[in-house]
C-alpha cells in the first residue's frame, strides 16, 4: 500500500492541535514551536504531493484512499485529489505555514509593540489547526458526508478565533454574523445533499455518499433544476458571492491577522470549491440552467466589490471588499461552464488565496506597529519596512492582473471564457480591473510612499521581524512562480477542467 499522504496531511493538524492542548499553557514558545513544525511539515507534504501530481503528468483522481466508515449507510472516508483540488491543498499548506510565522509575534514593552498572538497562544494555534485540518479535509474528500463533516469543522473555530483574538470593536458582532451566515449556507446545502443521496438510492439502488458514484446517479432534469440553487448558493455563501457576501468583509476586519489570511486565503476557496464540486459537478444540468443567474450574481460581485473597495478608508475593509471582487471573478469563471472560464477560476482560486494572504499579513504587520488601519492616517512605511513594501507592491500587481504574475494567468482566461459566453458581461466586469488598479496604486502611494504623518511618527514604528520576512518571501515566490512559469500549474488544472467538462458534456 502506498503512503497515505492525504490522510497524513489532513489529520496532522488535528494531532498537532491535540498535542498543543496537552502542553502547559505558559510554555508559549514551545507551543509556537510545535505549531511551526507541524505547519512546515504539512507544507512539505502538500508540496511533495503537488509535485508528484505535476511531474508525474497525472490526470483524474489520484492518491485515493478509502476506509469504510459506516458501510450500512455508504459513508466512507475517501480521499483523493484531482487537478482542481491539488493546488488548493498546496495553497492551504502555504497559508497555514505563513499564518503560523506571522502569528509568532514580537513583544516589546518599550514600544508598546504586541504583534502576533500573545494572549493564550496555545488555544489560538489549536483552534487554528482544527480549522486547517477541516480545510484540508474538504479539499481532499471524495465522500459527501465527510465533506460536510470537515466543512463544519472548518467553520466553527472561526467563531472562537475571531471572537477571542479579534479586533475589540467589532469582533463579537462579526464573529456571530459570520458563523450564522456560514452555518445557514452549509445546512441548506446539506438538505440538498441528503435529497441527492436518497434520489440516487431510488434511481440506482446504491446507498452511498461517494461523489464519484453520485456523478453517475442520473438525477432527473427537474430534480437538478430544483436542488442546484440551494446546494450551489449554500456553499457559495462561504465563497462570498453577492448578495450573500456581507459577512465576509466584517469577518476579515474583525479577525486577527492569521485568521484573516486563512479566511480570505483559504476558507472562501472552500466555498467556491465545494460549490463547484457538489453543485456544478453533481448537478450539471442544474448548473447549465441557472448559469445566467450565477453569472449575474458574480458580475455584480466583481464590479460592486471593487467599487466599495475603492471608497473604503480602512485598509482591511478595502482588502476585504477586494476579496469579494476577486472571488466574484472565480464565480464568473465557474458560471461560464466553458474551458477557459473554468481554467481561469481554478488558477484564480490559488492566485487570490496567496495574494490576499499576503495583503492581510502585511496589513497586520502595519496595524500591530501603528495601531491604525485608516489609510489617510498612514504614510511613509516604505522607509521603515522596505521589505513589506516590496511584498505589498507585488501583491498589488497580482491583484491588478499584471502579466508576469499569477493574477494575469488567472484573469485572462476568465475574461476569455466570459467573452465566449456573454460578451457584454465581460465588458462590464472588466471595469473592475480599472477600479482595482486605481485603488491599489492609490493605497501604495498613500501608505508607503507619502510622507509620514506626525501623529504616526510618535509611535516609533519598527521594521518587520525575520519571520515576517520569511512569510512574505514565501508568498511572493509562489505568485511570481506561477506568473512566470504557468506550466507549473495550468496543465494540472486543465486535467481537472477536462473532468468537469466531461460531466457537463451531457448537458
Amino acid at each position, binding site marked *: 500500500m502506498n503512503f497515505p499522504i492525504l490522510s497524513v496531511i489532513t489529520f496532522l493538524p488535528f494531532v498537532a492541535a491535540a498535542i498543543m*492542548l496537552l502542553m502547559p*499553557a505558559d510554555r508559549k514558545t514551545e507551543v509556537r514551536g510545535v505549531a511551526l513544525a507541524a505547519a512546515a511539515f504539512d507544507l512539505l507534504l502538500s508540496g511533495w504531493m503537488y509535485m508528484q501530481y505535476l511531474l508525474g503528468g497525472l490526470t483524474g483522481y489520484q492518491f485515493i484512499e478509502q476506509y*469504510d*466508515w*459506516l*458501510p*450500512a*449507510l455508504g459513508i466512507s472516508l475517501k480521499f483523493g485529489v484531482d487537478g482542481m483540488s491539488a493546488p488548493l491543498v498546496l495553497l492551504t499548506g502555504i497559508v497555514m505555514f505563513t499564518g503560523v510565522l506571522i502569528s509568532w509575534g514580537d513583544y516589546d514593552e518599550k514600544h508598546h509593540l504586541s504583534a502576533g498572538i500573545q494572549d*493564550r497562544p496555545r*488555544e489560538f494555534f489549536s483552534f487554528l489547526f482544527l480549522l486547517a485540518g477541516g480545510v484540508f479535509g474538504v479539499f481532499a474528500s471524495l465522500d459527501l*458526508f465527510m465533506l*460536510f*463533516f*470537515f466543512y*463544519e*469543522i472548518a*467553520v*466553527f473555530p472561526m*467563531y*472562537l478565533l475571531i*471572537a*477571542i483574538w479579534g479586533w475589540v470593536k467589532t*469582533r*463579537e458582532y462579526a464573529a*456571530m454574523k459570520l*458563523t*450564522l451566515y456560514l*452555518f*445557514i449556507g452549509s*445546512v*441548506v446545502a*446539506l*438538505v440538498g445533499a*441528503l*435529497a441527492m*443521496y*436518497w434520489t440516487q438510492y431510488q434511481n440506482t439502488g446504491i446507498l452511498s455518499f461517494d461523489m464519484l458514484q453520485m456523478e453517475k446517479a442520473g438525477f432527473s432534469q427537474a430534480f437538478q433544476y430544483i436542488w442546484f440553487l440551494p446546494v450551489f448558493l449554500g456553499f457559495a455563501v462561504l465563497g462570498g458571492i453577492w448578495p450573500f457576501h456581507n459577512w465576509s468583509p466584517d469577518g476579515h476586519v474583525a479577525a486577527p491577522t492569521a485568521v484573516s489570511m486563512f479566511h480570505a486565503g483559504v476558507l472562501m476557496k472552500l466555498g467556491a470549491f465545494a460549490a463547484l464540486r457538489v453543485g456544478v459537478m453533481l448537478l450539471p444540468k442544474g448548473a447549465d440552467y441557472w448559469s445566467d443567474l450565477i453569472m449575474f450574481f458574480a458580475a455584480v460581485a466583481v464590479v460592486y466589490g471593487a467599487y466599495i473597495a475603492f471608497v473604503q478608508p480602512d485598509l482591511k475593509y478595502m482588502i476585504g471588499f477586494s476579496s469579494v471582487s476577486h472571488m466574484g471573478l472565480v464565480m464568473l469563471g465557474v458560471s461560464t461552464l466553458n474551458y477557459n472560464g473554468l481554467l481561469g477560476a481554478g488558477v484564480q482560486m490559488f492566485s487570490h488565496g496567496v495574494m490576499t494572504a499576503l495583503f492581510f499579513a502585511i496589513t497586520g504587520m502595519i496595524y500591530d506597529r501603528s495601531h491604525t488601519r485608516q489609510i489617510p492616517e498612514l504614510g511613509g512605511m516604505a522607509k521603515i519596512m522596505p521589505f513589506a513594501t516590496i511584498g505589498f507592491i507585488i501583491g498589488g500587481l497580482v491583484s491588478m492582473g499584471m502579466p508576469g504574475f499569477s493574477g494575469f494567468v488567472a484573469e485572462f482566461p476568465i475574461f476569455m471564457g466570459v467573452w465566449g459566453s456573454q460578451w457584454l458581461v465581460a465588458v462590464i466586469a472588466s471595469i473592475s480591473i480599472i477600479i482595482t488598479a486605481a485603488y491599489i496604486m492609490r493605497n501604495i502611494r498613500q501608505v508607503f510612499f507619502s510622507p509620514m504623518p506626525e501623529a504616526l511618527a510618535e509611535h516609533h514604528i519598527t521594521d518587520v521581524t525575520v519571520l515576517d520576512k520569511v512569510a512574505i518571501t514565501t508568498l511572493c515566490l509562489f505568485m511570481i512562480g506561477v506568473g512566470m512559469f504557468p506550466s507549473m500549474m495550468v496543465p494540472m488544472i486543465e486535467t481537472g477542467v477536462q473532468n468537469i467538462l466531461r460531466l457537463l458534456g451531457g448537458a
Partner: protein
Amino acid sequence: MFTPLMFASILPEILILALAVILLCVEPFWKEDQRRNAGWLAAGGLFFAIIISLLFGRPGEPTAVFGNMIRFDWLGFFFKLLFMFAAAATALLLMDHEKAGSRGEAYLLLLASVLGMNLMAASADLIMLYLSIETASIPLYILAGFLLADDRSTEAGFKYLLFGTLASTIMLYGFSLIFGFAGTTNLYQLSQMFAGGGISIPLAFSVFALVIVGLGFKLAIFPFQFWAPDVYQGSPTPVAGFLSTASKAAGFAVVVRLFFTAFPGFAPSWTLILAVLSAITMTVGNLLALSQTNIKRLLAYSSIAHAGYALIGVVAFNQLGAASVVFYLAAYIVTNLLAFGIVMAFSRVTGLEEITDYAGMSRRNSWLALMMLAAFLSLAGMPPFGGFVGKVFVFAAGVQAGYTWLVIVGILNSIVGVYYYLNAMKFVYLYRMPNEDEANHPLPLTRPYAITLAVLVLGVILVGTVFAPFFSWSDAAALNLF
C-alpha cells in the same frame, strides 16, 4: 418456570436491585463523612452491571418472556445500557453535591428510578408499561425536591409530582380505553386490532391523544414542556441532568416501541400529528432559550428543542428513522450529561448559575472550558462531536420519508441553537471576571468530576467520529421494530 432466558432478560434489573440492597445495608454503618462514597459504590456497581449484562445478558432473537409482559430484544437492551450509563455518571456527579451528596437515599432513589426505566424500555404490555413508568417517576419526584431547605427545590419536586401524576393518570385512562376497545393489553397484539379495523379512526385518535399526554410529559414536548425549566432549575443539578437525559430517553424508548408496533395501522395520520408537535417543540424550545440568563434554564429549553429533533426520526417512521432516534439519544445523553456535569462542577465551587457568572472561565480552568466547548458545540450540532452525526442521521431519515419541510424547520432551529450556544461560550472564552482576577479564582475539579467529565467528553468525541459501532447497535435495536 424460570428459564435461563428469563433470567438473562432481566439480568440488569436483578443486578441493580442487588446493588440497591447492598447500598441500603452498607450505608447506615458508614460515618457521616464517608457517606459520599455511596456514589462510588453506586457508579461502580452500575458499571459492573453493564459489563455483566454485556457478557451474559445479550439478547438474541426477540422473544416475549414473563407471560408476554417483557420483550427481550436489542431495542430494550441498548436503552438499558444507556440508562445505566447515565445513572452511573449521575451518581458520580452527585457525590460532591453539597447537600445531597452525602445522603445514601439519593443514590438509592436513583437506582430505583433506573430500575423502572429499564423495564419501561423492555415492557411489551400496557400494564407493565404503566407500572414501570410509575416506578421510574416516583423516585424522580422525590429527587427533584430533595433539597428540603431550598424553596426552589421543593417547588420543583412538588410541581413535577403534580403535573407528572396528572399526565400519567390521563395516560392510564387512555390505556384503559385501549383495553376496552381491543380486549388486550399486549402491544404486539394491539397492532392487529388496529390493522383489522376493529376500532374506528376517531376513537383511535382520542385514545392516541390521551396516550400522547402522558408520554409527551415524559419527553417534555409541546404542549407539555412547561414544567421542565422550573423543575430543572430547582432540582439538584445532577438530578436535572438525569431528568433531561435518561428520563427523556426512557420516554422515547416507550414512544418508539408503542408507536412502531402498536399503531402502524394508521401511521400517516399520527406521523403528521407528531410532525407538527415536533416542529412546534423545536421552535418553542429554541426561541425561549434565546432569552434565558440562567444556565440551567437555558439547558432546559435546549433539551426541549432536542426532543423535537429526535421526534423527526419517529415521524419518519422507517428503519433509518428508528435507528437515528436511538443514535440521536445516545449522543444526546452523553452530551447533555456532560453539559450538566460542567454546570455542577462550576456551581459547586462558585455557587453561581447565571450565564454571566461564566465570564473568564477559560482562564480559571482551561480544561473545563474546553469540555464545555465540546458539550455546547455538540448540542449545536457541530462535528467532530456526537450531536452533528445524530442530527445528520435524523435529518436524513426525515428527507427519506418525504418530510423535507420538517427537516427545514429543524435546520432553521439548529441555526437559532448555534446562536445561543455560542453566546454562552462567549462568556467562557471572551469576557473577563469583573476585576480580571481569574488567577485568584481557580476552579478545581474533585476526582469524581474529573473522571466523569473526562469519560463523557471522550464519549462525545467518540460518538461523533467513530460512529459506525454505535450506529450498528442503534440499527440492530431498530431492526427489532420491523
